[in-house]
């Protein structure tokens, strides 16, 4: 029972192809439209920030990292609820991310239920 958003969608940013498509597939299965981007740069280049209702991003990426992405959004006063998922579980990083306003911080392999719930929660904010 998710909200169907007409104009907005979930953005998935991860440099790993498998991960991107897996998450995108998962979101589709719960009726959440999602768009995937290989890098932070690609996301910003696309100009879809305003249409993004929720952002799922990896932390460690070449070029713009997940945290950099978050910082830039903050700087642009783009308040998009952000969920971090990372293969490298890093407690300090988690603190930093949460402090900067992250909705959730998940480690791979993540619990799909947990992710879905986090997304729904972010959308209801």
């Amino acid at each position, binding site marked *: 029972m998710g909200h169907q958003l007409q104009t907005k969608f979930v953005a998935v940013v991860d440099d790993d192809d498998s991960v991107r498509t897996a998450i995108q597939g998962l979101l589709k299965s719960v009726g959440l439209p999602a768009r995937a981007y290989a890098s932070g740069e690609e996301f910003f280049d696309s100009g879809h920030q305003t249409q993004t209702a929720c952002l799922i991003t990896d932390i460690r*990426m*070449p070029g713009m990292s997940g945290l950099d992405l978050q910082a830039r959004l903050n700087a642009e006063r783009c308040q998009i609820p952000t969920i971090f998922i990372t293969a490298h579980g890093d407690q300090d990083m988690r603190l930093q991310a949460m402090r900067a306003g992250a909705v959730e911080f998940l480690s791979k392999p993540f619990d799909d239920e947990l992710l879905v719930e986090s997304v729904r929660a972010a959308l209801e904010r």
Partner: protein
Amino acid sequence: MRQPLRILSLEDDPRDSELIHGLLEAEGIACEMTRVDSQPGFRALLEEGAVDLILSDYSLPSFDGLSALKLAMSIRPDLPFILVSGALGEEVAIEALKIGVTDYVLKTRLSRLAPSVLRAIREADERAERKHAEGALRRNEAYLAEAQTLSHTGSFGWNVTSGEIYWSDETYNIFGLDRSIKPTMEFVFQRIHPEDRDTVQRALDRVIDENLDFNIEHRVLMPDGGVKYILALARPSRPSPGILEYVGAVMDVTATRQSEAKLRESEAYLAEAQRLSHTGSWAWNPATGENRYWSDECFRLMGFDPAGGMPPFETVAQRFHSDDQPIFAEKLERARRERTEFEVDYRITHPGGEIRNIHAVGHPVLGPSGDLVEIVGTAIDVTERKQAEDNIRQRENELRHILDFAPQQVAVLGPDYRRIYINQAVLDYFGLTLEECLSLDRSWFFHPDDYERIKSETQSKFSTGLPHEVEYRLRRKDGTYRWFLFRYNPLRDEQGRLRRWYAAGTDIEDRKEAEELLRQAQANLAHVNRLTTMGELTASIAHEVNQPIAASLTNARTCLRWLHGDTPNLEEAREAATRIVQDQTRAGEIISRIRLLFKKDTSQRELVDINEIIREMIVLLRGETTRYLITLRTELAEDLPQVMGDRVQLQQVMMNLMMNGIDAMVDVDGTRELVISSQRVKDGQLTLSVSDSGVGLPPERADHLFDAFFTTKAHGTGMGLRISRSIVESHGGRLWAGENTPHGASFYFTLPTIDAQA
């Protein structure tokens, strides 16, 4: 006077004839009278010839005295003809005298007949004698003239007192004077060669003074410029007091003098030739056993002085080397006995102690009856030549020694690759004799695996005619095979034609063994390097593998979701399941690549696509690039030709370089970018590069970058670049490093592609 006198009487009255006969007999003139009374009878008796005197009547019936006289004059003018007749008259008498009658006696005065006959006979005899003498004289003169011409000798007479000169024909010839001109002493002196005039004059003065014979040789200058040599001999005589005459001969001795000069000249040349060639000539008398003749050079050869005269044979023989004496004697004896050629070599000691080598040759000279008259021959001093020959022989032996004992196999081949020379080292190695070596088929010597290769390689290399090398195994006498490196050098003649191949072979078995050990050691090292690197990559590999596995989990859950609920969406479920398959495949590939890298023995060469290798390593190292937040960029050329290489080893190189690049950027604040490129440089080669924006090359120690155990990392082994370089080089490429701008390092390496490798 002949007795009896034969008288022809022309008388018609026989009584007259008898009368006359009786008259003559009475005066003591013994005679035989034959009477004729006709012309034919007269003529016949005259022609017969046995007549000493003719007494003729004047008038006969059929004939007359004057006609008879004429007839007698024509047939026998030498016969005295006395007319006996009556009175004839003055005119007849004069006529008869003109015709040639000897006397005329009147029949009335027959007392005059006997004296007349006697006188006539006497005169006839005298005439005959004179004629005879004149004939003899003329004959002698002719002989003399002939003799003079033949011997180029002319005679002369010179009346010193009057200056008158007589010359024979030949003397005219010799002096070149015309017969019509009378010779004078002035003329003679004109002819005498100017240089000889004084000498001749002085000689003449002296002989005249002292009344001696003269014997003078001088030159004569002829009008045509020719020079003659004249020998003048003469004897003085005083035909009457106050008159001095010289009578003698002049001889043209030019030819003799010239040939004498030529002979002297050729003798001089011969002596010179002998001296220059150290050849002497000799003649040995078998009867006496002594040398009859030695040329001057022969004396010198034997160490004797020509002025000292011919030394006795024994004296000479004593100077011979004691070993040579008996041989010489035996050979000479054989030549004498069998009258054959003689040839011997011997050593002779000179007075100064010097030993010379002599080579003597001789021929027998036989007499008319076939017996040996003497042996003549030459002797040559061959000491220098012998010395030179000995030197050459010695040097040849030395060279042969050097070649035989050189620690290399040496062989010489002809233009047809036939083995001309093989040194001892070769024979010792094969354990064969020279004959065996040359007779065995080539295949016996080589390792069967090498034989085909050698044949084709040799053929192409030899046909270029250039120096070249070949490596192959040769079978040793104990049956084992050892590796040899043979180098071949061609030798050409002046026309540029190939005459010889010089081959030298070195035993490189030990080297090969060492090379093999090294190769194994390197392979081991490379393996260790891989393991170490793999160890370093554990975390990132784990991460890499983890990604697809984690994604699979999500996809599986998604799949279940689609299948759950009232209306399962099979299509979506299928898609999710497909994604799982892809993820797992990806994970499996990573695993298998890792497994490959863990393999120890990797010496497999195959055609590889270098871009594929690059991509595979990128996949493997993605974990690392992600972990350190490094952007990875590739610039890979399309359609690169393949490389014949070892896949694992090339992956290892790529991995090493990428790891280094990543490591260099770990602590860098700015952009972290790893760029990998591949491009075709030229035909047969491609270049790859791995560039980072890291800390760059260590400044002072840039040349040690590729050294073993060189590392800037705290826990590095320092072998990565070393191993990478040896791998690249073993593939026929080069690996080097350069600075990157604005900072960082680039590593480049080339590889030969399939279209370059023969």
